[in-house]
């Protein structure tokens, strides 16, 4: 009963502005021009979109503009913001902590995306070949349902140096126990792995849905021509999955850049010697421990610019908007 979800719900186009604009255009050209039925529509329409429009203006546009404005000011919340021009940006360039934080963030994002996408893709392909079972996909999806706080707590217990089960197993295997979250070198890889554990299933289910859209006759034809598994994967699966894969990669990048809860709970105060001081954590500390909102806003803007640049680059490199299917 619940599984008979209309096709449209399972797969409307990805919510890119371009796709939406395209469909918006097609609707207006299809629809009948202003018939009497639609005469009073505009009044009702504005009434209906009013709450959303207010929310959009007050909690999306206004803070966006204000964020940019605050990045040019000195602002400590209690007294009004004072315009200081590019002073914050100049400070940013010479702020060693900021740059090491950028490094840590890039390291974290790189590991999350690299390992996460690899396993998500592998899992999706394996599921696609072996089973359609919703139960298995559901189990794989399980960690997506819990919060980063819970994931961080569970893993800090399992990785704990004396009593943690992983360390006990490792001790049996290697004779050593590992500090993981407490060490400077392992903190970021460990946190990244926790992040992968939490998001891998979700990405795998997304990629699985993408795999289901590839027509089976393409595979049959390839097999008739005697292509092996690896060749089929490289020459058919990857190219045909590209738009979905690119979207999943971009989403993983965006969410990894903004990681906060896992890092903050697993390694409080940015870990030993700031080893896991990712940018959102540093921004949070600047704003709420040192009350330097102006500078924190400057860093948020810098983070935004980095995100924008990487997303743009990624879109260009992978030609995310195009599909080889048609």
């Amino acid at each position, binding site marked *: 009963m*619940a*599984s008979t979800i*209309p096709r*449209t*719900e399972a*797969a*409307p186009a990805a*919510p890119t*502005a371009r796709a*939406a604009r395209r*469909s918006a255009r097609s*609707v207006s050209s299809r*629809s009948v021009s202003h018939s009497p*039925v639609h005469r009073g*529509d505009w009044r009702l*329409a*504005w009434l*209906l*979109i009013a*709450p*959303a429009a*207010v*929310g*959009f203006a007050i*909690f*999306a546009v206004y*803070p*966006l503009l*204000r*964020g940019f404005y*605050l990045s040019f000011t000195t602002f400590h919340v209690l007294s009004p913001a004072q315009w200081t021009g590019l002073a914050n940006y100049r400070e940013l360039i010479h702020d060693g902590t900021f740059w090491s934080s950028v490094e840590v963030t890039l390291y974290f994002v790189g590991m999350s995306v690299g390992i996460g996408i690899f*396993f998500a893709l592998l*899992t999706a392909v*394996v*599921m696609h*070949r*072996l089973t359609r079972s*919703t139960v*298995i996909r559901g*189990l794989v*999806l399980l*960690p997506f*349902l*819990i*919060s980063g*706080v*819970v994931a961080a707590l*569970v893993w800090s*217990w399992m990785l704990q140096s*004396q009593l943690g089960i992983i360390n006990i197993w490792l001790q049996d295997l290697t004779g050593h126990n590992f500090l993981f979250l407490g060490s400077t070198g392992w903190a970021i890889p460990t946190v990244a792995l926790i992040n992968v554990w939490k998001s891998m299933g979700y990405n795998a289910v*997304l990629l699985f*849905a993408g795999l289901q859209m590839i027509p*089976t006759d393409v595979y049959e034809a390839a097999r008739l021509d005697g292509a092996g*598994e690896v060749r089929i994967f490289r020459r058919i699966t990857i190219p045909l999955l590209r738009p979905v894969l690119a*979207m999943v990669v971009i989403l993983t990048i965006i969410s990894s850049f903004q990681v906060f*809860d896992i890092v903050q*709970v697993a390694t409080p105060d940015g870990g030993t010697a700031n080893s896991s001081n990712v940018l959102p954590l540093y*921004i949070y500390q600047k704003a709420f421990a040192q009350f330097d909102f102006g500078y924190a806003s400057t860093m948020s803007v810098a*983070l*935004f610019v980095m995100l924008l640049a990487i997303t743009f680059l990624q879109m260009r490199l992978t030609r995310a908007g195009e599909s080889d299917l048609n």
Partner: protein
Amino acid sequence: MAIALTPAPRTPRTARRRPPVGRILAWTYLVGVLFITVFPFYWVLRTALSNNFSLDIHPSSILPTGFTWGGFERVLGISSQAEALAQGGSGASVDLAVYLRNSLIYASVLTVCVVLCSAMAAYAFARLHWRGRNLVFSIFLCALMIPGILTLLPNFVFIKDLGLINSFAGLILPGALFSAFDIFFLRQFMMSLSTEIEEAAILDGAGRLTVLFRIVLPMTAVPITTLTLLTFINTWNDYFWPLLVANNQQVEPLTLGLALFKQASPETAPDWSGLMAATLVAALPMLVLFMIFGRRIVNSIGFSGLR
């Protein structure tokens, strides 16, 4: 390849032709992934039902060691301080019942509001004809590209200026009115519905609002349920925004309570059994939801599930 000469059936049965080694490897991998996914959940349960003193002695016991409900009693504020200490509690107390209530209010009010507002807007974009419709829609969609972290600080300042720090209103308001994703998702679905029933109703003299609430919304029940679930899960799990605007037990949601409990427990001998019991209590509502709606959640995460 002799088999290839026979006409291939529509359902691919190619698996049989492959050497079974690959299949065995693939199944081994899948079982491994499922183990890594599910084991931590079991381990939380096992630890939560164990006694802290026995945990020290039998850290690798697969079954709960020194079975007790004490962990749950401690975090739900049922057991007394003395009892808690006797069971290896750290003395750091937590009353999850209050946090649970706060999370319920926060997540359900926000979810209901944002889904309703989005459904109304989606209808205006999908069915009504008005000047500037596509322009407004495109502008709304741009919000998808604004990362949360950028609006977080200014939103905090705004909520603070309104004097709504430490109130449910401050917690809920920024997310309650607008969601570009929800509007997009619902509009897409509404446009795929046939207009016949609506037109018939209008010819019969029904007003537009009647059509919306009596016909379109019921017909959109399935995607609305999906969105409601996803929004609820996301809000329930949110940590960053509540951390900024709530620092009072009367409004703090579970995620915050959990993090505070962790911080309050001593570094040297944390109350792991209590911590894991609390973790389980925090995750349980999501797990229950998943047991009820699992199939729907799994199937709805197609390309639309991107968020």
